[in-house]
């Protein structure tokens, strides 16, 4: 049995092929000439640059998030707990959303024979093969995944000077990522396999539209969220507080608001406990349980990849 470091190294080539094929399919494989493939193949050596851009994006979100949160933490007036909860929920949701769109196209390639077969005929055990495919999948997200969690932990802690807040937000991100990774994998396995087939041009078109919309939305959110939060957050909070208590409790159950509300309540322990806190705590426990199930399901898909 090879060590994890060795298997991680092997997965680099598998990941490179995933990037190569997803780029080809998005461009329309039949129209690409040999010289284009050569050029593309050389460009793949610089996929690290793309990852650095992803890291910059996650750094931007973490920086913006911590500054806004710091601003919210210094406010008072009775609604600060709900404001912090809504902001953390938006922050977690936005990061999960970015993770989804950054990985959905490339993930659709992972179950294609072109990716799996070349290493399946080498002298690897099924267990090693499963791990390599899992690592190749994680490589699609690695920089953004680790970068955003680490930067959230560091910047939230450094700027807000609230270690508990930074740890809880980073934990919330991790939980959401575990579920997002399973959703992506499930979609890739169940629906997107067909998109990898070059002859299905209509399907390729749909996935292109999804990708373009995804990227457009990411940048729209990047522009809109700062403006929205500064201008509209008080209005959103007022609307939320004016809601019927039953509806309010139902909304608090919805992830990741449940986790964010739970985090905010921990930060503002001095404000006492409410029935919303009990609802948020119970649903947060369920959310964490769900993330564990998602992790197990993700690992299970890779364990059964040879079947």
């Amino acid at each position: 049995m090879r060590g994890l470091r060795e298997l991680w190294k092997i997965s680099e080539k598998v990941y490179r092929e995933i990037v190569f094929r997803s780029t080809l399919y998005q461009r329309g494989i039949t129209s690409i000439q040999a010289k284009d493939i050569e050029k593309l193949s050389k460009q793949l050596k610089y996929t690290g640059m793309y990852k650095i851009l992803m890291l910059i994006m996650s750094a931007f979100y973490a920086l913006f998030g911590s500054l806004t949160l710091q601003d919210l933490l210094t406010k008072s007036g009775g609604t600060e707990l709900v404001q912090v909860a809504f902001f953390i929920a938006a922050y977690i949701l936005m990061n999960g959303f970015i993770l989804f769109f950054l990985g959905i196209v490339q993930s659709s390639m992972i179950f294609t024979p072109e990716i799996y077969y070349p290493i399946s005929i080498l002298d690897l055990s099924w267990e090693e093969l499963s791990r390599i495919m899992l690592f190749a999948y994680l490589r699609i997200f690695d920089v953004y995944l680790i970068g955003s969690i680490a930067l959230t932990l560091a910047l939230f802690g450094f700027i807000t000077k609230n270690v508990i807040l930074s740890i809880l937000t980073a934990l919330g991100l991790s939980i959401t990522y575990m579920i997002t990774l399973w959703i992506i994998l499930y979609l890739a396995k169940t629906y997107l396999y067909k998109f990898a087939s070059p002859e299905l041009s209509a399907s390729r078109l749909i996935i292109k539209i999804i990708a373009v919309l995804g990227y457009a939305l990411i940048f729209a959110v990047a522009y809109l969220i700062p403006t929205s939060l500064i201008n509209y957050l008080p209005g959103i909070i007022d609307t939320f507080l004016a809601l019927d208590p039953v509806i309010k409790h139902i909304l608090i159950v919805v992830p990741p608001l449940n986790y964010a509300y739970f985090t905010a309540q921990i930060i503002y322990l001095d404000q006492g406990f409410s029935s919303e806190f009990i609802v948020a705590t119970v649903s947060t426990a369920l959310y964490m349980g769900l993330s564990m199930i998602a992790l197990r399901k993700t690992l299970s898909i890779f364990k059964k990849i040879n079947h």
Partner: protein
Amino acid sequence: MVGYVPEEVYLYDSLTVREFFEFVASVRGQTGNVLGLVETLVKSFEIEDYYDYPIATLSQGTKQKVAIIATLMHRPPILVLDEPIKGLDARSARIFKEIMQLHIQNGGAIIFSTHIMDLAENICTRIGIIHKGRILAEGTMQDLKKMVDESAGTLEEVFLELTREKEEIAHIVEELKRGLL
């Protein structure tokens, strides 16, 4: 232990031929001396010119050669080959047949499937005839001959006898003669 060449060759298109061989060697934990053998095989199959080309740019025949070299790189005692000379030019097919003979002389074993009867007849010590998913016969060439008309000289004739296609072919040929002449 086992080297396998599938009928449908899948390689990593994003890698160059050189990178692919290095990748295969690293996965198998091979070091140093393997490159000498690769160089010899690359020259034998005349793919030196494509050594630094991405695999995506290669023809199907060249990809087949790359797959064969990658399989032979770690000198496996057992080779499992599915239509190994499909897509190969005459020169490369001949070289590969010689490689198969050398492999056998060195004490190796080869299990392969083919539709080319001459290839099976010249190389195999034991032959299994599969027709419509069923094994009809298995044995040495002499064993197979004994199973059919003693006059059957070649494996092709044995095959047609065993699958009862000889009469059908004779009938088709008669019809063709009537239609074409």
